[in-house]
């Protein structure tokens, strides 16, 4: 049977591939455990089972995933909720087909050990591509006149002492800072997850135009991705093997230990604070909260409703 099976596969695979729909997925940043569920879905054949020929294309460090979807370079991308709201308000209707994060991973880390919310006029990094919108709005609400330094190299600027604080994520930059040996006392970290603006972040979005014409494919991608995340939660070591293959291929400056810590934290953030479950849904109260912070800071002029985000 072992000799026959490869022959059968050779016959079946081209036929299956022929029937599959090409689907480009662009994660928010370069390869890392933050996207383990999608890698797993691809590697374990969950996308193929749904009839999708998924290609994962990572953006360059200075590229914005929102730009990718806006320019039609991909069919789906991951966006933080606040950025999704701004993108919709900016005239690009999006549909959330899968909400992975249930909590905010955003942290503000002070370089010099101070409480970040007391550092008036501080130079603080924010990522060019991405997730810092809610934090920037929050800081404006608080009246802290940070000088935002948009960068793709926040950790390097932080290490060199070129900035006073950095915006980061609890699963990524936080551990990378720890890895440099810089002693960060807990009071020097502001965690949005524990504050009044714990707003869920990563969700998978497609344009509404694409959704209306390719609803089946979008839903199939969401189902397979969710299955991928479920598999990762049960097979973390194997999932790390897959992640490390991606990071090595793309020469991402990371290592297995960092990715292990990242995966653990990402899976934790996927659990809803109230239920303790990975619910994969957009919470209406968090949409309301995101609208409020963006409106208050002037980043939005009119609110974006939950209905505008959902299929």
């Amino acid at each position, binding site marked *: 049977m072992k000799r026959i099976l490869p022959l059968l596969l050779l016959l079946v695979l081209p036929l299956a591939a022929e029937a599959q729909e090409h689907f480009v997925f662009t994660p928010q940043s370069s390869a890392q455990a933050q996207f383990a569920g999608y890698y797993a879905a691809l590697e374990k054949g969950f996308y193929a089972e749904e009839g999708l020929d998924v290609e994962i294309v990572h953006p*360059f*460090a*200075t*590229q914005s995933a929102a*730009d990718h979807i806006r320019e039609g370079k991909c069919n789906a991308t991951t966006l933080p909720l606040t950025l999704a709201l701004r993108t919709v308000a900016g005239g690009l209707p999006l549909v959330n087909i899968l909400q992975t994060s249930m909590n905010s991973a955003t942290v503000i880390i002070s370089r010099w050990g101070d409480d970040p919310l007391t550092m008036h006029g501080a*130079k603080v990094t924010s990522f*060019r591509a991405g997730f810092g919108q809610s934090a920037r709005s929050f800081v404006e609400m608080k009246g802290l006149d940070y000088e935002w*330094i*948009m*960068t*793709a*190299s926040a*950790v*390097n*600027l932080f*290490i*060199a002492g*070129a*900035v006073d604080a950095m915006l980061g994520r609890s699963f990524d930059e936080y*551990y990378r800072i*720890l*890895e*440099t*040996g*810089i002693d960060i006392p807990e009071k020097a970290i502001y965690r949005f997850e524990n504050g009044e603006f714990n707003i869920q972040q990563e969700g998978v979005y497609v344009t509404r135009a694409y959704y209306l014409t390719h609803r089946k494919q979008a839903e199939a991608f969401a189902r397979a991705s969710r299955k991928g995340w479920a598999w990762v939660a049960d097979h973390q070591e194997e999932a790390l093997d897959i992640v490390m293959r991606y990071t090595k291929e793309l*020469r*991402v*400056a*990371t*290592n297995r*230990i*960092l990715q*292990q*810590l990242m995966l653990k934290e990402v899976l934790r953030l996927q659990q809803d604070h109230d239920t303790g479950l990975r619910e994969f849904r957009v919470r209406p109260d968090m949409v309301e909260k995101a609208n409020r912070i963006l409106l208050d800071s002037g980043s939005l002029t009119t609110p974006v409703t939950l209905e505008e985000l959902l299929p």
Partner: protein
Amino acid sequence: MKHFLDSLRRSLSAKLSIWVVLFTAMILLASLFYSSYVARRYVRVEAVQRASQVLENSVLKLMNILEDVELAADNLEWLVYRNLEHPELMMDYSRSTVQGTPGLNGCSISFEPYYYKDRYYYSAYSGYLDEDTIQTVQEGGDDYQYFYLSWYQLPKLLNQPCWTEPYCDWEQDDSSDMQTEKLVSYCKPLNDPDGNFIGSISLDISLNWLSKTLSSVQPYPHSYVVLVSRGGTFLVHPDPDKLFYQTIYTGTLLDDDPELEALGDSMLDQEEGMRSLKIDGKRSYVFYTPLKSTGWSMGIVCPERDIFSGFNRLRWLVIGIGLLGLVLMFIVCFRVIRQTLRPLSNLAVQAGNIADGHFDTILPEDPRQDEIGTLSRSFAHMQTSLVTYIDELKRTTAQRERIESELQVARDIQMGMIPRVFPDKGDIDLFGVMVPAKEVGGDLYDFYVLDGKLYFCVGDVSGKGIPASLLMAMALTVFRVAVQQAPPVTEIARQLNEALSAENDQLMFVTMFIGAIDLKTGRMAFCNCGHNPPAFLRKDGKASFVPSEPNIPLGVTPGYVFKGQEVDDVRGIPILLYTDGLNEAENEAHEPFGNDRLLEVMGSAPYDDAEEMIGRMNDAVKAHVAGAEASDDLTMLCFRINH
């Protein structure tokens, strides 16, 4: 195993050999420890010198590279400032800088967006080494916004030259494939005359090239050079998984490693030093020194196994030779000691035969003059002495047995001389005992009824044993002869005194209480010849001594006139006569039974009969001495004349 251990226990040769080997082993071990300690210290000092030398050379080599880069940056800066209005020259400057600086991988002259207003949003002029050729490229685009990257932002924010953390740079080649290179860059800010930032220049060094260049020198086979950045990232490391991808602290994120953390802190604090710690499971020495101008720190990791490999080989060789020597020493010691002690083994066998009673066993002669020879001769002498002693013992034992037998016969004869039959308890209730302290004694008692009178005596011959017994027999005979004539008690005393005084060369004497009672009237006449006064039981139940006038003992002074005394009526009064074996009987603590105790016991119960009284007194004495050996003969005579 048990059999082997038993054999060892039984063999003196093996035991001595083991002790010798153990002692030698201890000395060897102590020497080995000390020499190892000293040698190890010297090896360590030598390793420090050697590693420090290599480290110093490597630092010099690196500093040369870095100074070349910094000098090239200075030159480039001068050129850029001089021709700032001619952007078309910037590409040539980049190319020539790469071309003219050994080790340089790339060079960029980058400007702020729209710096050249008539040109493009992105103005970055880059030259880079592509294998052996130098390529140039106009960098920047929506997919590569260089002004968000560290090599551009750091000099801008710090407004001073600096070295970046390592990063991975992307280049798009003709086939649209992304090529990457792990780099570290030296950057300088470019400012306009007003001090406003207008751009930066950055000169890149390839980490792979740097690693290859610095790893060429190794003080030990498995030692290696590491270079860590200000953020702890490995800029040089032989492990490709660590180079660029890990920091010195990575291993401490999941598991505590205080040694590694301390090394990291020390290196990043720009300290110089040497530390011993476990790296990747191997105990290693790390020698490190800072590169002050960069914030980097260079170290040489030398596995302890490498440093001490020669020393360890030598130590194992010495241990091996030592062990072999100890084994040989054991064999030689065992054989020599066994040979030396062989006469002792023979002697032990012969001693066993003698112990079994074969006293005629012939011991082998040993001509040696050492301790073994002396022991053999001494043992032979001891055998002879033993045989003689045993013969003597046999003879003495036979003699003693014969004497004991004769003494037993004498005892029987003496006891036969003492009256054993006592009168019926009609008018006289009388009972007596004599217990010699040795086989034969010098005490005596007697009584005789003649012409309505009861004659009685209790005596004690001076001394003990056979002489006393002979004198006792003589005194008893004289008493019996004298009583036949029914003389007064003083006459009896006189006759005894004269008989005992005659030919008394030994100066022996006899104390004696002599009495005679008229059975009809109860009148008692008595003569106390230096003897203990008798005790009697009064009508009130208490005991007292009979007041008596002491005379001298019998046999001391011939012709002495004894005085007698009389008591009117002793009928119904129990009287106890005794020798000093009663009142002077001692216990283990040498406490005498005493007169008071004598009277106390006598009056302790109503009088029943003479035998009971003597039995009671005997029990009291036995209880008092409690098993102590009797020092004197004990004699008691008790009687009561009934109405």
